[in-house]
């Protein structure tokens, strides 16, 4: 027997682990934030230069010698921009360029070369973005493109407008972005070591009192997290102030240069320049953080920093909660117990690990993501939004679910009778139930019937019949679906030929809900017989002949034998097969999607195809996810009910 585990040692270990994780995550966030701030600073500085340049190019008319002169004069004093190119869409010409490659016989003005098509395409993208935003009266597509170049510099492009229309673009390249400031690792190290040492000292008088140890450790942890959070935010705010000062300096410098260019080339009154508006976002909306006179707008900056502080607090708060959970997990001995369990059942966990890990990554994680999605109104337009937006901007709570389930307008009564609303979930659910019941009933009935016949002893050619009957199962079901769709074709389909052969008039199968659904069910019924037949046949063959012998000796009729021997023996095999079959049919996407495609007017959709159409035809991802959740809930309820009724999963 080993000695009783020490609470003190556990809490010390837990505190160190929690500190490493909590402080580590916070530090990592800080380093990343500083890298981002550094990049953002470089981008804003470059944008100020670019916007100043665009302002001058637009004043110079966008084309001709005046543009070339303006660019040349502007470039003379510019330090940050290494190359400047101006392209006019009219005539596809390179109007001005300071790139060294564009010297000699390639000097501007000239037509764009074939290999410069990306430049032209970029211009067209910007033009489309400007026009889209203008039409929508909003800012959805970025009007300035920024990309990092291999050498570490930035490549930017902005549209040139003339009388409201985009007539060209200015593309510039900058000197490499300065490397981000180094963040000392002493602070995080101290933030781990000092509380850990403090705990060791404090723990001496506390001895083995568990709850006191827990409170002390938690207090130390939270204190450290708060202190480190404050330190990290102060560092970030300092970086941000540097950014604002740098940008303000750039605005002042560019304003001076621009006004000298404007007066030198007499491009109008220098006083009409608006240097304050050059510090803008990618939609060319001024940030208004720099006052027109080139000083930092302190009130606005404070407001912006306060917003940032709120977000930082949320992130660091989440880290603190995580660290606290880790502390409790280790400190109260759960970790030790988990470790012991893992060690004890090492073999079992090794064998199951690959499968469980895969399931976690590609089945359960996507499912959880889908659950989150169902509470948002994510659509095609917002699909690129970061993860955090799902919980803030795009979060709509239960709205999707109330929209789906609370809509009881299954039908409206008009003068011509009832008009069904095929998009309503209760209509689709009804169709789905009919679809599932019809298919499973036919599959079980026909499968069992054929199996009983095939189980006849001494029947000639049994193996051949069985092989032939299995064929529909062997065929890929999308091929089957397309074949049957062809056979139900109104003009050329086989079924209408048969009807006409018998003197009937051809049926437009997919123009009425009933016939359309019939076509789908016929297809799927044909598909689902072999599975049930094989299951039944296998179970029938495993019934001992002695049972029937005994029953016959006792004088039982054939029907009595079937009732009392065959059916009960089939039950253990058939019940799980039926449960599986119901779930598969309920979710059988291919047949409906390919045979009727929901025609006419989405009336023959089942739930799963309807959800697919919400997702991939209407691109309402959040709504479709909520719809799918409803499907899942229905199936889960069915599964639980079945399980209760049949006890199929008993004894696992």
């Amino acid at each position, binding site marked *: 027997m080993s000695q009783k585990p020490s609470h003190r040692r556990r809490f010390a270990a837990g505190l160190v682990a929690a500190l490493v994780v909590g402080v580590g995550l916070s530090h990592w966030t800080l380093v990343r934030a500083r890298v981002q701030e550094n990049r953002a600073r470089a981008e804003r500085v470059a944008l100020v230069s670019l916007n100043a340049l665009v302002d001058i190019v637009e004043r110079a008319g966008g084309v001709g010698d005046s543009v070339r002169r303006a660019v040349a004069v502007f470039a003379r004093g510019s330090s940050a921009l290494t190359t400047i190119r101006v392209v006019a869409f009219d005539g596809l010409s390179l109007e001005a360029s300071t790139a060294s490659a564009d010297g000699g016989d390639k000097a501007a003005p000239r037509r764009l070369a074939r290999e410069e098509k990306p430049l032209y395409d970029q211009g067209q993208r910007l033009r489309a973005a400007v026009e889209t935003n203008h039409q929508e009266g909003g800012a959805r597509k970025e009007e300035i493109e920024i990309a990092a170049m291999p050498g570490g510099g930035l490549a930017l492009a902005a549209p040139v407008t003339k009388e409201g229309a985009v007539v060209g673009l200015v593309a510039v390249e900058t000197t490499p972005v300065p490397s981000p400031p180094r963040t000392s690792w002493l602070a995080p190290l101290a933030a781990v070591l000092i509380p850990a040492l403090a705990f060791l000292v404090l723990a001496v008088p506390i001895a083995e009192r568990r709850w006191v140890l827990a409170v002390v450790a938690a207090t130390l942890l939270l204190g450290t997290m708060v202190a480190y959070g404050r330190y990290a935010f102060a560092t970030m705010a300092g970086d941000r102030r540097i950014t604002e000062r740098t940008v303000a300096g750039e605005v002042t410098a560019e304003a001076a240069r621009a006004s000298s260019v404007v007066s030198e080339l007499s491009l109008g009154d220098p006083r009409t320049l608006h240097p304050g508006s050059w510090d803008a976002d990618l939609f060319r909306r001024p940030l208004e953080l720099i006052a027109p006179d080139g000083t930092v707008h302190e009130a606005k900056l404070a407001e912006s920093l306060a917003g940032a502080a709120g977000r930082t607090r949320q992130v660091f708060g989440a880290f603190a909660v995580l660290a606290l959970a880790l502390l409790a997990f280790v400190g109260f001995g759960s970790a030790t117990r988990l470790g012991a369990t893992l060690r004890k059942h090492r*073999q*079992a*966990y090794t*064998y*199951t690990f*690959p*499968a*469980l890990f*895969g*399931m976690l*990554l*590609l*089945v359960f*994680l*996507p*499912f959880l993501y*889908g659950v989150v*999605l169902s509470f948002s109104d994510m659509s095609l337009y917002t699909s690129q939004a970061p993860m955090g937006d799902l919980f803030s901007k795009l979060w709509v709570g239960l709205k999707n679910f109330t929209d789906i389930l609370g809509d009881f307008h299954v039908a409206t009564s008009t003068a011509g009778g009832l008009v069904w609303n095929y998009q309503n979930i209760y209509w689709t659910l009804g169709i789905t139930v009919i679809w599932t019941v019809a298919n499973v009933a036919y599959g079980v009935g026909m499968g069992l019937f054929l199996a*009983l*016949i095939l189980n*006849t002893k*001494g029947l000639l050619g049994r193996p051949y*019949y069985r*092989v*032939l009957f*299995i064929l529909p199962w*062997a*065929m*890929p079901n*999308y*091929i089957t679906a*397309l*074949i049957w769709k062809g056979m139900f074709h109104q003009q*050329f389909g*086989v079924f209408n*030929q048969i009807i006409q*052969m018998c003197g009937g008039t051809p049926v437009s199968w997919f123009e009425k809900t009933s016939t359309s659904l019939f076509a789908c069910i016929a297809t799927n019924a044909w598909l689902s017989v072999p599975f049930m037949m*094989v299951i039944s046949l*296998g*179970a029938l*063959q495993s019934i001992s*002949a002695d049972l029937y012998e005994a029953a*016959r000796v006792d004088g039982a009729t054939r029907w009595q034998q079937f009732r009392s021997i065959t059916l009960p023996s089939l039950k*253990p*095999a058939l019940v799980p*097969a039926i449960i*599986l079959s119901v779930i598969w049919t309920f979710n059988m*996407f*291919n047949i409906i999607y390919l045979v009727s495609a929901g025609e006419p007017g989405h009336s023959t959709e089942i739930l*799963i195809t309807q*959800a*697919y159409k919400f*997702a991939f035809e209407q691109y309402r*991802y959040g709504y*479709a*996810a909520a*719809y*799918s959740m409803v499907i*899942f809930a229905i199936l889960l309820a069915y*599964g639980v009910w079945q399980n209760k009724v049949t006890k199929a999963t008993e004894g696992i």
Partner: protein
Amino acid sequence: MSVGSRTGDFPHLPLHVILLIYVVVTLYPLLWVFTIGFSGQQGLMIVDIPANATFLDRLRAIMPWPAHFSFSNFTSVFTEQPFARWLLNSVIVATATTILGVFLACTAAYAFSRFRFPGRRAGLMSFLVSQMFPGTLMLIPLYIIIVQWLGLGSNFIGLILIYSITGIPFCVWMLKGYFDTIPRELEESALMDGASTATIFYRIVLPLAKPAVAVTALFSFMTAWNEFIQAATFMDKVNMYTAPVGLRFFVGGFSQQWGYFAAGAIVTAIPIVALFLFLQKYLVSGLTAGAVKG
């Protein structure tokens, strides 16, 4: 005694009639696709019907026998269309899926069958529940994980991972049922002789479970060979299409090349049907052993 059986007094002739009728029902759609495939045309009609068709004309039109035999659909689907490439893609994906899927399912099923450990019941139940996750709910997140996080868009590995892992629950349940029927005494005596768990698993359990493993392999192969929604979502380069995506390409949208479709469908279906005929003796025993748990 053994000659008599419970249905022995049924006359066989009516049974044959019923079975033959159902053979026609089963085979007709398949013969129809053969007819279109060998017709050398792209249309749906087997023969042209005159305007005032008689009974016999119409009867001829439903007979699954082409008006003219021609291999042109088969040759041009391979020479004029990139179908050979699509078929090769399907072979690669399905083979790799089978190997990976069987490995994952066998190891997990063995542990679930032989060991008692915390989380066992939860694991098995979660596998069962995951079968109810609607595919449409999974498609968008899977796209984000596979394409955006792992960068596996238009890549065999992404598709192989999805197929082999989504097939795990079914395979594990089936294999576990079969492993449960293998007597433990065999393993215990091997254990007494000093065999390790790994040896027991590879030398004793797996060979005994051959029928169930065969069915699992077949199931994995079929899943990968027949799936098309995910393949269409993740493989957006034409030369990375799998056969199902390629076949839909022939008759989807504005394209109505039924001849190419039929020829391609026949070629695609042959390996599966061949596998079925080869493995069908295992099919019944594997499936029912998994299902009958007593």
